[in-house]
């Protein structure tokens, strides 16, 4: 049984869906954050799969960018989440709604 691109893409889609549902249903900001990372990496998987299939380095390059940007985003996002949690430990994402229109 050969592992084809379809496998990778299926894995990517499943991971992405899990991440997406996680973002939607969980209220803990930290968990939502992890779900978000899951979605990003799901996309990375698909990028690598396509790069391999199409024999194009551009996909892998994109992955590097995503990794770097994700790392930066984690730094900013996590520090915000930590700052908020430190102030109100029982915090959920739904409580952060002061931008309500």
């Amino acid at each position: 049984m050969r592992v084809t691109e379809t496998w990778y893409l299926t894995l990517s889609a499943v991971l992405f869906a899990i991440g997406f549902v996680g973002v939607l249903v969980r209220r803990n900001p930290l968990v939502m954050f992890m779900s978000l990372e899951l979605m990003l990496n799901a996309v990375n998987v698909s990028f690598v799969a396509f790069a391999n299939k199409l024999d194009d380095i551009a996909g892998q390059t994109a992955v590097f960018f995503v990794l770097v940007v994700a790392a930066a985003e984690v730094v900013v996002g996590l520090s915000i989440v930590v700052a908020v949690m430190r102030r109100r430990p029982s915090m959920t994402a739904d409580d952060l709604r002061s931008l309500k229109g």
Partner: protein
Amino acid sequence: MLEAAWLIPAFPLAGFALLVAFGRRLGDPVAGWLATLASAAAFVSTLVVFAGLVGEESESRFFIQHLFTWVAAGSFSVDAGLLVDPLAVTMCLFITGVGTLIHLYSIGYMHGDRNYSKFFVYLNLFVFSMLVLVLGDNMLLTFLGWEGVGACSYLLISFWFTSEANATAGKKAFVTNRVGDFGFMLAMFLLFHEIGSIRYADILTRAGTLSTFAATLAVVLLLLAAAGKSAQLPLYVWLPDAMAGPTPVSALIHAATMVTSGVFLLTRLNPVLAEADVWSRGLVAWIGAGTALFAATVALAQNDIKKVLAYSTVSQLGYLFLAVGVGGYVAAIFHMVTHAFFKALLFLGSGSVIHGMHDEQDMRRMGGLYKFMPITGFTFIVGWLAIAGVFPFSGFWSKDEILLYAWNADNIGGKGLWLVGIVTAVLTAFYMTRQVILTFFGRTRFYDATGAEISEAWSVRIDAVRQEMTAAEVARDKAAEAVDKANADVVKRSEALEAARGEVRQANAAVATSNPADEGHDKLVKTLDKAVKAVPKAEQALAKATDGVAAAEAGVVTATDELDAAVARLDELKARQPALPPLMVTARTPAPDVSEVADHLPASYEHRQEYHPHESPATMTMPLVVLAVLAALGGLLNLPFTSRLKVLEHWLEPSLFGHEAELGASAATKWVLAALALAGAVAAIVVSFRVYLRGRVRPEAIEKPVFAHAWYVDDSYADFFGGPGRRLFDLAAWFDRTIVDGAVRGTATVLSVAGRRLRVAQPGFVRAYATFIGFGTVLVMAWFLVGRLYLRQ
């Protein structure tokens, strides 16, 4: 040397900037000297440029100095550049020359004013604006100067803004001028549309390509602009009110320079006038002639020394329009220059009079001032002879030239224009003679009691009599009281007499009944004696009391008489009119009779007896002397005898492009016309002497109320704009409030309502946003997929 042209406006601008920054610190009089220096430097620069222009060949006396690109918008661009040609330089020469003299004069005139340096800030800014106006090489730059002088005029008219009247006069000037500015702008747009440029170099050379209709329309619009700035019918109303400003301002702005800018504009654009239909030029001439005559009649009956000059200015400006209308551009510029000399002289002279008279402007309060201020008086007389057109003073030559061109202009009713012109000239000589006589000759009416003072003295006197009357009333009441008292006394005394008599009777009876042998008999007899003796005493007292009644009654009669006399005196005083000064005076008018109330005149009258009118300081008289020389000799600029003597005409030739009207009149006609004008002026002076110096004719025969009220033009404007006009403005205001503001407010309302609706989409839940993004992405992808699969096929 022509390259120095930029220095001409630069100096006043620098003076303005310096004075804005340091004026207050420099103070009185250094700030004034600095401003004068800036203006004088501009004059010197003008002389340099003038010399440079003289050095050029006649054909190449048209020099444009490019300074910088001012406006660049697509194919439309405006440069800030200076156009140096004989016309501009002539204007610059008298703007800076007369301007410098007026600056110098102001140093003395404004001495001690609270806002001394501010005055010179405005003055320098004005000179700068005026120079930009005449030197600008395109219409927009001229318009910049045009608005600049308007703003300065506003600021200077209402310079003493704490008085309501001055502030109103400033506003009136500004608003009236806006009407004219509207014409300027439309003319500028029209010329740009037709010629594709607003540079004079293009307009002047390509005016020939204008259609007659466009040129005529442009002339009418320019006439509107010029009528506003140069105070012609029907927009003249601001100029007489503008006399509220300090006198040097009246001289600089409202006599010598700013008001000539309308004439300058028409002369500058003479090729456009040449292309226009002949009736539009006739309109210019007839408006000028009408204004000249109208203002001259009004000047006949003004009593304010500056108002006479103001209407005289309006009248002389009418002459300039008349000259432009009939194509006598040289005559117009000639008269403009000589008028700048003698009208500035007259205004500054009147300022000197006002200064020496403790701010008195009413000519009825002047008279006989020649002996107090000989320099002012002498120079004023030179100005008078010049404006009256007496040979050989400057006004004679320039006015004659205009009349000659008017006579020549047959296609627009030249003979009629000439007639109006000559009547105006006669009136001018008449009212100016009146002014000179009332101001400088005859009795010195300055010391006379004023009407207000006499009225006050009379009311004081009436009050005194009224007090006497009150006192008499009190005395009468007192006397009546005394009568009552005396009567009561009589009653008391007669009762006492009765009592005494009763006692006698009692005593008698007692004596009769008693036995003489008794012990008490002697005592009773004694009592009787005493009672009998008391009776005459009581009788005497009664008689005295009765006399007292008579005396008291006599007192009542006297007091009543006194009261009656006082009432009669009061009635008599009230019935008599106090001898107030007359409303119209001549040199022969006697002083109002104040002998009856001499003791009651208020303190202001006493103060005035100790004050004497005095000559002004040298900074004020020096400009007068210089201007007097110029006013006397200004005619040398353009003597009509031989072609070589017509200096101004040859000089201005390059600016006129051959559009100067051809004179067809023969030499004999010229001599006759000149002689007629001179005879008219002399006759007017003689008649004026008879009326105002000799008092042979009552002034009421000449100073009609309709003249004094300026033919009720101002009142009619007020009535119109207060009545039907007001409703029109209300309508416009309503339109603005409801339709224009409504549209603006409606836009705001729509946006705010939409915003309120859209707010709902922003719940603030992060997860909700994620849902939107997620499903949005799905939708977008679906759209692309569907597009790929179906729509592209």
